[in-house]
């Protein structure tokens, strides 16, 4: 019995030690940047205004990490603590995370829904508890939920930017046959493809050089799926000279496939997002260009909306951030700026 007790105590103390050493980690994780030397500095350090609970679709994708990091940083500046968790694309996990936030009585909940229909009951619980809910990147447009503000990229506009880049890549006069790497289950991808097609249609109505979408295949927004889908697509339509991929991973998959087929120089690729890998590929000329999103701005805008709401004002119910066209020229400019550090 005493041996059993001893082992128990050992077990418990190990556990306690584990938790204790873990506790300061969040503070270490975000290096304490000294407050910017502005007049507002003293006012920027009010007593904690509470916690922002953030549940993002997945932290495997660097895109969402950037959103989370920026919410944390901007939140700190405005006097909030932030907890960022990953739903790992799993809506039941996200449901539990939201319920945890409610118990923790957070000041605000930010989420990018893993499944906008199935997350409804959890949002309703937050509404019932009086905790304001915000979405970032992925909106939730279901009835019977109250969401203070939805912040996302203007995906259709981004798709239009993608169309413009495609016209630029293949030449407005020359035209060409185009393939699309889709991710049909995602609403964002559907909007992107819609915008992309509409620009090509408008162009075709006015110019002699015609662009024709000859194939739309499922790339699932993933590198390996994009790779095999591109191989199949090029087999069926060897005449394709341009590929529009709905995100960077699938665009990079397409590039690998074209390299394997020896067609890398004949086919231009337009990606989407402007993730670090994508930007690097643009700099190296492997991808022609991207409509780039601004996950950092999204994170900052969410916190601004929260602050506005908590100050008793009413933030914009929807904020659609425009994309920007990013080509080799912009990539080189950015690379140069990185090399010569900004004057401090």
């Amino acid at each position: 019995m005493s041996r059993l007790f001893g082992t128990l105590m050992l077990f418990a103390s190990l556990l306690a030690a584990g938790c204790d050493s873990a506790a300061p980690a969040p503070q270490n994780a975000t290096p304490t940047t000294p407050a910017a030397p502005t007049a507002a500095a003293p006012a920027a350090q009010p007593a904690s205004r509470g916690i922002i609970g953030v549940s993002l679709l997945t932290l495997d994708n660097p895109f969402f990490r950037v959103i989370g990091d920026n919410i944390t940083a901007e939140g700190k500046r405005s006097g909030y603590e932030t907890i960022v968790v990953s739903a790992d694309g799993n809506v039941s996990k996200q449901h539990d995370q939201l319920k945890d936030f409610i118990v923790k009585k957070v000041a605000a909940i930010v989420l990018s829904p893993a499944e906008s229909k199935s997350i409804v009951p959890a949002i309703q619980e937050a509404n019932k508890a009086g905790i304001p809910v915000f979405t970032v990147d992925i909106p939730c447009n279901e009835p019977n939920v109250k969401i203070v503000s939805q912040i996302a990229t203007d995906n259709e506009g981004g798709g239009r930017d993608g169309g413009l880049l495609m016209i630029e890549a293949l030449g407005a006069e020359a035209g060409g046959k185009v393939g699309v790497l889709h991710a049909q289950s995602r609403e964002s991808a559907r909007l992107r493809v819609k915008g992309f097609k509409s620009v090509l249609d408008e162009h075709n109505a006015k110019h002699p050089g015609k662009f024709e979408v000859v194939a739309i295949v499922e790339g699932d927004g993933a590198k390996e799926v994009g790779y095999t889908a591109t191989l199949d697509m090029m087999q069926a339509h060897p005449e394709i000279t341009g590929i529009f991929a709905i995100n960077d991973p699938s665009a990079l998959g397409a590039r690998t496939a074209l390299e394997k087929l020896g067609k890398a120089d004949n086919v231009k690729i337009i990606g989407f997002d402007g993730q670090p890998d994508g930007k690097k590929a643009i700099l190296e000329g492997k991808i022609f260009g991207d409509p780039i999103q601004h996950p950092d701005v999204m994170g900052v805008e969410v916190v601004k909306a929260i602050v506005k709401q908590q100050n008793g004002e009413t933030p914009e119910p929807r904020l659609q951030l425009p994309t920007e066209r990013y080509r080799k020229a912009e990539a080189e400019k950015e690379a140069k700026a990185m090399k010569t550090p900004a004057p401090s």
Partner: protein
Amino acid sequence: METEKLTTGRRVRTQFMGIVSYGMLPVLLLLCIYFSVRTYSEQQREGADAGRASAAAILKQFGPHPCVVIVAQKDSPPEAEFVTTLQQQLRSSGATVAATSIGDVGDARRALKTAVDAGKPVDVVACTQVPAAWPLWKNLAKDWPNLGKPKIMTPPTYMWPNFLTLSNLSNITERISVIAIIAIGMTMVIITGGIDLSVGSLIALSAVVSTLLIQNVGGGQNATPMVMILSSFAGIAVCGLMGLFSGAMVTVFRLPAFIVTLSMMLIARGIAQKLTHSEAVADVPASYKWLGLGADLFNIPNCVVLLLILYAVAYVLMHYTVLGRYIYAVGGNSEAARLSGVPVLRVIIFTYVLCGLLSGVGGVVLASKLKSGSANYALMYELYAIAAVVVGGTSLAGGEGKILGTLIGALIMAVIQTGMLLTNVDLDTQNIVLGVVILLAVLFDAFKRSGFRFPGLRGEAN
């Protein structure tokens, strides 16, 4: 050997007399105490409670007839309750409520204007937490010279561990309910020496089948409770059939349980995806949430009541019936059990069917919680269920284990997860701690069984 195993039932009963037989129970208690201490903090009052406490504080400080303005946020039921209660309590004791505002800064400003127009100096502005931080109050004396010099008051707070709040405790049990339910079946399968990897996928299948039936056959949003119940049973039955199939494969064809249930995991998930085309099935009545999110009996969530009933039944089955003894016997030594007349084949098949049925129940609970069915529900739940079983002291080698131990195991995992969230442990560390806890639990189990010596060093030079 066989006689020893056959009397396991009695042995378990005698062991239950001491807490020692549930080695993990003290660990659970220690964890609860630890997190209670760590989360001992200032608690905000909410709703009617906040209203009552505020009224008492205001009357105490400003005498029986103060003039009060009440400010709260919109879109929040607790805040509305705060306002109604406070207003009613103040008025009944003779105080003046000059104006109330449930809304944004603009509304609050209008309320102040109303109070100024009424002409009586305002003694107190009673705010809830968030409005109290509005910049509106910073220059109150300058911006509103005719208001009197009101004091901004928020509801009084109190100290209490955040971990030990009713809402947190019901949250812990509710979040673990699905995993704890499937862990019952998993415990029995593991005690027979098997394993079932298909439970997570079966949850998704059951959720999808029952919601699809409601949506497409039962009238969608207008489905009656009877239709919902029948659809749920259909989903559960489908999972039972899948379990029957696994059991038959494992026993009749002597295929390894690991491989059979791995295949069933893929098959069930695939069927669910095919049925839904990977979209959520959400066209179900609002009342479908009753099982997963309702709380009718003393505010205990309905799914937790279901969970407790299932554990009670399973406990009786395992410890007070012949079938229960057979299950232990089969896991201890199936050959010996067969020779002693235990219907080994039927016992094993029974455990897989039960495991399937319980997964089906779990699927219905989850679908109800999320008010929809989707093929990507319950990913990795099989591993969490196995972890709960093992943490609860059941041996993966079979023949040993306790149903209530599994419940404790599941609770330990839920307590750790929720506790870490409440104490602001970051995400990556949470995974590490959870992994370490599972490992320690198994280690503890191994030590216990070898009499607290290093099991691998027995017989080596000491």
